[in-house]
């Protein structure tokens, strides 16, 4: 398992080489990897369908409770199969779609890295490991959205997606840590198997809110939905893969994963139910206004993500089954539709649906698969989408309390709009009068049709024979619900309320499709004022504010005046020290001045007076001389208190310092008084604050010893094991030789720096 995931990153690393060697066939060659993984994961199917879950673990950082542990149950297997399966087609599709792109090699690296991260995310059992993969998907997604980095639009969209998802990721990390603390385990399998419910735990509310912030941003739930349509700046295979079938479902995955442990409370049901339903409707509503085919599909993805969130929130066995079914159905038809949209773009150069029409003769296969996939999107029998939608409506009707009224209404409204969206993307481009296109329309090559063909036909087959999907879907539903749902997938549920709603939505949806152009214009007029308060405006305000604030604080703190930096640094230190003592207490000073010898008083007084004289004199010579008194006084202090090596070193360095100052400092102009008296008073106060703080801290630390000094060991072992009687020197060249080595390099760097500065000046002069 570990090797399965590592192998992807490994292949990703060599993908450009593979691409160069195999040329046009590179897509197919690289697709072999996800294909092999698909087979590997499929081998777990019998065990998982039997209700088992498989756990595999390798040690990583045992001290931190972080390990490479993986969990395969219905839910993670469903995702793993989708990621690997759709991955096969996305990679082979990209091989042709981006054939002419000079960065195709880089594309393979990114898409394969993403695939590895996403697989790690859904398979990880350790929540920290899962979070690492979670962030990796955000980063690879950023790089993929911004793949065409020459375009400003792509860069902006990439950054927006990154900021929204990574910002949510921060909240998620905090939530996951709280989850680990509250449940006492960092393994999902143990958290889920835990006897105690977390519902009554004091951390339940904050951890749910934080985790949901993470999942809502990742899965583009209202009000964070705006980044997803913008992410369509990515190449189409990326949209098909990341922003519809896989990555955006990571949030859904995590909510489904944690549903058995966290779900079942009013907070969970209402939050997920309402936000999901609102997202569902928002997505459908925005879709109908869009004209660019990828935007239409993106908004319908937002709608699907909302639907899934809502279903997890409802939490009944019915809803779990509906969620699992809808998840599979959506990935199949949406993956297909995105690739077909890319196919149309590839064949005609056209992205705007209103400009399309009559393509069924030029692109017969694209048209056929589009119709099949769109029927599944619309939820018409006998496609798998129909099975999913009927279950979804049934589950919405079965929602608890007042949600049983709100959710079905929103679901019906969305269903109506989705029928119209399906018709727009599935019928509009291919039927009606033929239009003029930038390129002569032509059918796409096999590599670009294989994926849509398999995915859309699979939607049809599973619709006709739902029993085929039963084992995987039932196992997934079991993971979501936490117990066997005991339900079977059926195409025909008999004549009931959901069927009525389906019929109504079909009729109403087709009417909207018929008058789409005028509907769009009408909605556009209504939406003008709404646009001003849309969440995306909020994001832009926030970003503008951030830029303004950082410019403001840079102006204040980094204003180019060195003394401001000194002031800020010193006073911050003082504030932190004083603040710590004030908050935590423990400031105790008990000092006595009776055990001080007379020559110690004298030398300390001399050094202190010399230092003060240095600070106030205006004669450079006097300053350097007094500085010498300070330095030699320091040497005496070292000698008085048993540090002969320090005393000698200090004397020697002091002498060298004087040489240095003589060589350089007297080349500089004499002291000038720049500052006015008021500034000086302010500086004196600040300096006194620093000095008093340091004195106080030092006095407070005297006599405090929290742990035995490590020098006990140095003193005891100096002669016996290091054969040296000067312990200071033994520490320098033996016990802590590596530190000394580092310091030698610092010295060498300083010397090289000085040398370079002086010699470059000489060269400047010559030239």
């Amino acid at each position, binding site marked *: 398992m570990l090797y399965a995931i590592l192998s992807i990153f490994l292949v990703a690393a060599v993908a450009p080489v593979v691409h160069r060697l195999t040329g046009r066939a590179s897509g197919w060659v690289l697709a072999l990897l996800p294909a092999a993984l698909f087979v590997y994961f499929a081998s777990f199917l019998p065990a998982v369908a039997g209700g088992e879950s498989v756990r595999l673990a390798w040690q990583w950082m045992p001290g931190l409770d972080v390990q490479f542990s993986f969990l395969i149950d219905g839910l993670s297997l469903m995702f793993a199969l989708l990621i690997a399966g759709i991955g096969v087609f996305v990679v082979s599709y990209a091989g042709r779609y981006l054939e002419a792109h000079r960065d195709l090699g880089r594309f393979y690296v990114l898409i394969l890295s993403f695939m590895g991260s996403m697989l790690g995310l859904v398979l990880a059992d350790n929540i920290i490991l899962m979070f690492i993969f979670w962030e990796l998907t955000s980063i690879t997604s950023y790089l993929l959205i911004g793949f065409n980095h020459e375009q400003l639009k792509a860069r902006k969209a990439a950054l927006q997606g990154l900021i929204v998802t990574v910002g949510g990721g921060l909240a998620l990390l905090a939530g996951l840590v709280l989850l680990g603390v509250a449940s006492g385990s960092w393994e999902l399998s143990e958290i889920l198997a835990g006897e105690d419910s977390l519902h009554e735990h004091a951390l339940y509310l904050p951890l749910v809110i934080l985790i949901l912030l993470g999942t809502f941003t990742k899965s583009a739930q209202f009000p964070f939905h705006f980044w997803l349509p913008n992410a369509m700046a990515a190449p189409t295979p990326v949209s098909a893969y990341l922003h519809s079938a896989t990555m955006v479902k990571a949030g859904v995955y995590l909510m489904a994963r944690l549903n058995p442990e966290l779900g079942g409370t009013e907070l969970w049901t209402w939050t997920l139910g309402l936000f999901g339903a609102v997202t569902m409707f928002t997505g459908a509503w925005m879709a109908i206004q869009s004209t660019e085919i990828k935007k239409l599909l993106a908004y319908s993805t937002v709608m699907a993500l909302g639907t899934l969130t809502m279903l997890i929130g409802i939490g009944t066995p019915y809803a779990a089954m509906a969620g699992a079914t809808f998840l599979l159905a959506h990935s199949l038809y949406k993956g297909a539709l995105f690739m077909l949209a890319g196919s149309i773009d590839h064949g005609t150069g056209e992205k705007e649906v209103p400009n399309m029409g009559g393509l069924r003769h030029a692109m017969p296969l694209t048209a056929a698969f589009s119709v099949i996939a769109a029927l599944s999107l619309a939820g018409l029998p006998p496609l798998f989408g129909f099975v999913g939608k009927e279950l979804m409506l049934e589950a919405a009707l079965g929602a608890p309390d007042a949600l049983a009224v709100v959710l079905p209404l929103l679901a019906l409204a969305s269903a109506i709009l989705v029928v119209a969206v399906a018709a727009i993307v599935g019928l509009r481009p291919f039927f009606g009068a033929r239009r003029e296109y930038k390129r002569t329309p032509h059918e796409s090559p096999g590599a670009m049709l294989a994926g849509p063909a398999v995915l859309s036909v699979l939607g049809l087959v599973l619709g006709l024979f739902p029993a085929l999907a039963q084992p995987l879907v039932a196992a997934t539903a079991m993971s979501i619900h936490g117990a066997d749902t005991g339900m079977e997938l059926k195409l025909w549920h008999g004549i009931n309320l959901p069927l009525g709603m389906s019929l109504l939505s079909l009729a109403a949806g087709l009417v909207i499709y018929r008058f789409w152009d005028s509907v769009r214009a009408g909605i556009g007029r209504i939406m003008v004022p709404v646009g001003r308060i849309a969440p995306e405006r909020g994001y832009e305000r926030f970003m503008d504010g951030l830029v303004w604030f950082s410019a403001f604080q840079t102006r204040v703190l980094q204003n180019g005046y060195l003394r401001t930096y000194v002031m800020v640094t010193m006073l911050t230190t003082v504030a932190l020290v004083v603040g710590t003592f004030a908050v935590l207490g423990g400031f105790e000073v008990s000092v006595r001045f009776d055990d001080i010898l007379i020559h110690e008083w004298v030398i300390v007084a001399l050094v202190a007076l010399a230092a003060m004289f240095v600070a106030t004199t205006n004669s450079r010579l006097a300053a350097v001389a007094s500085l010498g008194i300070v330095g030699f006084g320091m040497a005496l202090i070292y000698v008085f208190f048993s540090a002969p090596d320090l005393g000698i070193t200090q004397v020697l360095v002091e002498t*060298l310092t004087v040489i240095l100052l003589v060589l*350089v400092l007297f080349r500089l102009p004499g002291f000038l008084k720049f500052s006015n008296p008021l500034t000086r008073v302010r500086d004196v106060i600040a300096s006194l604050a620093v000095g008093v703080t340091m004195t106080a801290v030092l006095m407070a630390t005297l006599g405090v010893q929290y742990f035995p000094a490590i020098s006990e060991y140095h003193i005891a072992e100096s002669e016996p094991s290091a054969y040296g009687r000067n312990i200071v*020197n033994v520490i320098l060249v033996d016990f802590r030789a590596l530190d000394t080595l580092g310091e030698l390099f610092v010295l060498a760097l300083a010397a090289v720096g000085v040398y370079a500065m002086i010699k470059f000046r000489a060269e400047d002069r010559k030239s």
Partner: protein
Amino acid sequence: MMAGSLILQTGTRLLLPLLLLFSVFLLLRGHDEPGGGFIAGLVAAMAFALYMFAFDVYKARAILRIDPRNMLGIGLLLATLSGVPALLQGRAYLTSLWWDVEVPLFGELKLSTPLVFDIGVYLVVIGTVLTIVLALAEAEE
């Protein structure tokens, strides 16, 4: 830079070998008594700096024979390499190793990797100080 007085020059001519000898003495006894690579290096550097003040930079460079920058590099190399023998024995980098060598007429001599390391420190300190001081003095000219 102007040359120093005759007394200083004569004194320095006598002092330089003495100071250098003293610095080697400080270096070698440093493991047991106050001294060691840092202090010895500073003393040696000071001796050359004194010579530079008494005569001039070029005379100082001439009597050094070796460019202080090279001394810096050799010192770093020695200090870095002194940790390698321990690696070859499968122990942690910079673990000290000791050998007792019998030298005829001289008696027993303690050889060790910390001594090599300390010699490295000595050369780095001389190299650093003289690189800086000589470069500065040259810039004056």
